[in-house]
């Protein structure tokens, strides 16, 4: 697999691990923003290969983890009212206040797992007598395809298609984390694929304001190790720049075509984050001219409000303030079989990652 195997190379990865060891003089807390990076770190066993002084903190970039509880309840409400709900795969096991989408499906709901929202438009076209809703979650990465699905439906005059939007943005979350008094992050590995869409512009003011290095990083072992090296290098030198490790994919200006589609359909608004609460101007919502495609308005479900489970400390986990094993529920009342909160569900979630990978083996 060209462009993958090179980045899984043993020797190259080792040479960067050695370089980190060579230059590091004190402990640093580095947060990888994206769940895909968390997954890459654990899947490849990188955490145990890193020098002890590098402390990786798993960030909030797991779309499943930050989608608020009430959105899941809203999707379930639709499923129970004869609406075909289409969703990305790992969303369906996340517990709502009473049940998950998967349980609602078992009780008769028509739930479809898709890889692309454009498939949902096709389903709407093929089922003109049914309402079809796509559960549009995710960061900037999934926004272009979700926006495109709305444009397709509009162009083809498909009236029975709408989206349940819960789009969140990375930079406001980074700010929220840095503003938290308990936060102790020294550097970020920026989310490579988010930046592939958005470009680097938004990150310069952040690096400047908080005096923090931000390394836009990819997902393969070599990417991750190189990203960590670049972060440590800046930290040791006492500088704070935005650096692009993932230049083979991320361009300074981002993906112009994708940005155009996003800006055509979405506008920035306040957004609730699961476990963190509302962050101002931290997500996308549909523009007024697309309100016919807004499932919340169409089905009058915007009033569904549910409190978070008070036993779940997902917020502190997502901000990197607490490690999963510092939670009293971890591993007993909360496991991947019966998750209390979203970080235990997704393979990208910090709690699930710790449950699966980080036990006596890793520490020994």
């Amino acid at each position, binding site marked *: *697999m060209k462009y*993958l195997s090179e980045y*899984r*190379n*043993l020797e190259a*990865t*080792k040479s960067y691990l050695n370089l980190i060891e060579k230059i590091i003089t004190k402990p640093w807390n580095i947060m990888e923003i*994206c*769940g*895909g990076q968390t*997954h890459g770190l*654990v*899947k*490849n*066993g*990188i*955490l*145990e*290969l890193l020098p002890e002084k590098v402390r990786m903190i798993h960030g909030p970039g797991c*779309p*499943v983890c930050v989608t608020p509880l009430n959105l899941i309840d809203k999707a379930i409400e639709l499923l129970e009212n004869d609406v075909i709900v289409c969703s*990305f*795969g*790992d*969303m*369906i*096991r996340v517990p709502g206040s009473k049940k998950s989408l*998967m349980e609602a499906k078992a009780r008769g709901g028509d739930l*479809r*797992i*898709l*890889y692309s929202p454009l*498939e949902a438009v096709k*389903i709407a076209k093929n089922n003109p007598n049914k309402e079809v809703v796509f559960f549009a*979650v*995710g*960061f900037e*990465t*999934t926004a272009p395809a979700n926006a495109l699905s709305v444009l397709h439906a509009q162009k083809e005059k498909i009236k029975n298609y709408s989206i349940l939007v819960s789009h969140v943005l990375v930079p406001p979350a980074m700010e929220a984390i840095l503003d938290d008094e308990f936060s102790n992050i020294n550097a970020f590995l920026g989310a490579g*694929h988010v930046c592939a869409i958005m470009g680097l512009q938004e990150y310069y003011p952040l690096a400047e304001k908080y005096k923090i290095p931000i390394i836009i990083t990819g997902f393969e*072992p*070599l990417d991750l190790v190189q990203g960590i090296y670049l972060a440590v290098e800046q930290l040791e030198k006492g500088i704070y720049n935005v650096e692009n490790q993932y230049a083979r994919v991320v361009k300074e200006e981002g993906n112009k075509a994708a940005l155009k589609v996003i800006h055509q359909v979405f506008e920035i608004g306040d957004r609730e984050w699961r476990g963190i609460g509302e962050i101002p101007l931290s997500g996308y919502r549909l523009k007024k001219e697309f309100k016919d495609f807004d499932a919340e308005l169409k089905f009058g479900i915007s009033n569904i409000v549910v409190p978070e489970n008070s036993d779940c400390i997902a917020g502190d986990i997502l901000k990197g303030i607490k490690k999963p094993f510092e939670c009293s529920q971890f591993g007993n009342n909360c496991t*991947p*079989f019966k998750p209390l909160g979203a970080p235990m569900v*997704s*393979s*990208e979630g910090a709690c699930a990652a710790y449950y*699966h*990978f980080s*036990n*006596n*083996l*890793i520490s020994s």
Partner: protein
Amino acid sequence: MDLSELGFDTINLGHGSGGLMTRELLDKIIFKTFSNPFLDQKHDGAILKIENEIAISTDSFVISPIFFKGGNIGELAVNGTVNDVAMCGAIPKYLSLAFIVEEGLKMEEFVEIVNSIKIAADKSGVQIVTGDTKVVERGNGDKIFINTTGFGEVHPKANISTANIRVGDKIILNGLIAQHGMAIMSQREGLEFESTIVSDTTNLNFLTNKLLDKFGNKVHLFRDPTRGGVASVLSEIANDINNGIIIFEDKLPLDKQVAAACEILGLDPLYVANEGVFIAIVDAEVADEVVILMNNDENGKNAICIGEITEAHPDKVVMQSNIGGKRIVTPLIGEQLPRIC
């Protein structure tokens, strides 16, 4: 077979009534295809004679789509159960065959499935000795479900049990993993992608038999990693033996296309289903010879040793990644779900 002879182009509730329509279907399709002395008695069951210890295994097949690249549900229903019997260290002899058909299934599809069952049964040397056909109303099934139960004679040299597994034993895979699961994924609604990946469904009984002939009780375990993939089966074994298992990522036999499809869909090939793959855990002293024997068999061309049993980390499967890191390989919890990004 001339389908017009049957008078119906789809299966309907009448075919499961137990009356004349059922009899017609049985006579013209089932008995005609599978004719043998046991089945021809047309009794409620079959009376069989088996000299030695017997191994029995049952399995239900509910796959969608029922026709897929590299096979269909009928072939799978034979190979799946034949392989389960073979994994017990036995030589499969007889199969029962039960259909649950959803009304509306096209008769030509039913006949095609029956014919595939016949071909697969002949290929693996088993006879269909008893069976059943039920029809359910439309909406109460998914075209066709098949249950088969296999009976086999335990190989005289076999001593297959997790209790025989020792530290240092080698773990050998006979072939490429994740082929079946990815072939099915490539044809699922909403996921279709162009590929030439085909299911690896096949019968493994002749290869396991050869291994037992030659290596006898040096073969400690056979297991076929179907649903849940290699990861889930190895996790179960580690749990049973109170020792650990170490495997090496760079040894996993993986077709390039399958690897690429897994990357695109965000799936881990270790958890993807297989149909023509088995794990042999063998005494280290015969491991190299086992691989050579497999390599000379059509179902073992890609056979390779992927790891071994270790005292370290009891109950756990650990994989050493390509870059030298280690991670725990956990069993599959629910369905393997594609990640968002």
